[in-house]
C-alpha cells in the first residue's frame, strides 16, 4: 500500500502523536464493541473522530468518523468493521511532516 504524506501545522506537533495513539487504541476496541452491539459507544466514538480529525490536520479521520457514525446509527456492523479497517490501514501508512 502507498504511503500517505501529510503536512501539519508545526504548532500541533506536540498534540498529534498522542491524538493518533488514542485513535489506534480505540481502533483495537472496535471489533469487541461491534461484537457486543454497543452502538452507543460507536456513535459517540465516530462523532468524536468526525469532530476532530480535520481540525488536527488529518481530514481522513473526520471522513471515516462521519461514515462510521452513519453506519453505527444504521447498526450496520459490516460497514463499521470495514471503515475501521480502512482507518487502521491509513494510519499505519501515514507519514507526517510538521511545518
Amino acid at each position: 500500500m502507498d504511503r500517505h504524506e501529510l503536512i501539519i501545522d508545526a504548532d500541533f506537533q506536540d498534540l498529534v502523536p498522542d491524538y493518533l495513539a488514542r485513535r489506534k487504541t480505540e481502533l483495537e476496541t472496535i471489533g469487541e464493541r461491534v461484537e457486543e452491539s454497543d452502538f452507543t459507544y460507536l456513535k459517540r466514538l465516530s462523532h468524536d473522530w468526525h469532530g476532530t480529525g480535520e481540525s488536527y490536520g488529518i481530514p481522513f479521520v473526520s471522513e471515516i468518523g462521519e461514515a462510521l457514525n452513519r453506519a453505527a446509527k444504521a447498526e450496520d456492523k459490516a460497514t463499521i468493521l470495514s471503515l475501521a479497517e480502512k482507518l487502521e490501514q491509513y494510519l499505519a501508512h501515514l507519514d507526517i511532516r510538521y511545518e
Partner: protein
Amino acid sequence: MKILIIDDNPDIRNLIKVILRPYDIDVLLADSGKAGFEVLEKEDIELIILDIIMPDMDGFEVCKTLKGDPQTAEIPVIFLSVKDETTSLVSGLKLGAVDYISKPFHQDEFIARIKVHLALHESRTLLRSRLEENKQLIHILSHDLKNPIGCAQSFVELMNEDPDNTEEYMDYIKLSLEQGLQIIDLVRHFMAIKDKKAKLELKKRNLRQLIDIALSIIMNKAREKDISVDVNVDSGIYIEVDEVSFINSVLNNLMTNAIKFSFPGSVIEINAEQIPGGKNGQDPGLEKDLIRICVVDQGMGMPEDIRQNLFDLKKSVSRSGTEGELGTGFGMPLVKKFVEAYGGTIEILSVEKKEGRDNHGTTAVISL
C-alpha cells in the same frame, strides 16, 4: 482575558488551548458542565465555548443554567457542534448562545470568531459600565446641588424673619445660586473629561480661601447642630486644583459628611500641613512639596466594611447621620474621582463609636 472551554473530549480541549496559545487569552478547561460551573465560581470568564453532546449534562442544559443565573447570564456562549447537529442548534441559539462553531473547524475561522465575540463582549461591557456611571452621576448631581439650593432656601427664610438684613442675605443667596450653576457646569465638564474631550484646568489656589468659601455654603448646617468648625490652615498654603470642583464636590462632600455624622455640640477640625519635598525637602522620597489636608470629626465613625467600599460607586451605601440626616451615598466616589484628577490621593480613617470608646470619629486625609 479569560475564556472557558467546556467539552468532555480532551482532543478538542487540547487543540483549542494550542490554537489560542499565541494570543493574549487565558484558556481554562472543563470536561463537564459541572466542572465548568466550578470554574465560573472562581474566575471572571469573558467567553464560554460549549460542546453540545456531553454525558450527564448536555450543552443546551448547561447554557440554560448559565443564562438563568444573573452572575453568568451576560457571558457570551458559543456552541461547538458537529455539522449534522445544526438543526438542533437553532433551538440552542434561542437559549441565548451568540454563535456556533462547527466541528471539525479550521484554525483561522475559529480564531476569527473568537476575536469577534471577545470584541463584542468588551464593547457591551464598556457600554453597560458607562450607562451605570452616567446613572450614578445623575445621583451625585442631585446630591451636590442640594447643598447650595438648600442654603439659598435658608437665607430666603432668614430674609422673612429678619427683613433689616435683606441685602446681606441676598448676597449669600446669590453666592449659593452661583455655586449651584457652577456645579452644573462642573458636571458638564466632568462628562467631557470622561469622554476625553477636555481636561480639568488645574490652577494654584489659596487653600484657606477655598475652605472659607466652602464653609460659607455649609455653615448653616453646622449651626443647626451646634457644631463648631475649627480651621487650622496656614494662609500661605497653595494647592493646584480646579476651584469649582474642589469647593463644591471635594470640600463640600467632606464637610457635609463630617457634620452629618458628628454629634450636636461637637467640633470638626480642618487641618492642613505642607511637607517640603524636592532636594532640600524633609522627605527625600517626595519630588515636590506635599500638602496634606485633614477633615476630622468626633462623630459616630463607620464600620470597616463601609469604610472599605466608600469610594466604590456600585457598593457605596447611604447611612443616616446622627440626627437622621439622609444622603445618597454617592458623594465620596465623586470626591475620589476629583482628587485623583488633581493628581492626589484620599484616605479615610475611622473609629466607630462603641460603648466605652472615646476616640471615635472619622478623618478624611487628602494628599496633593
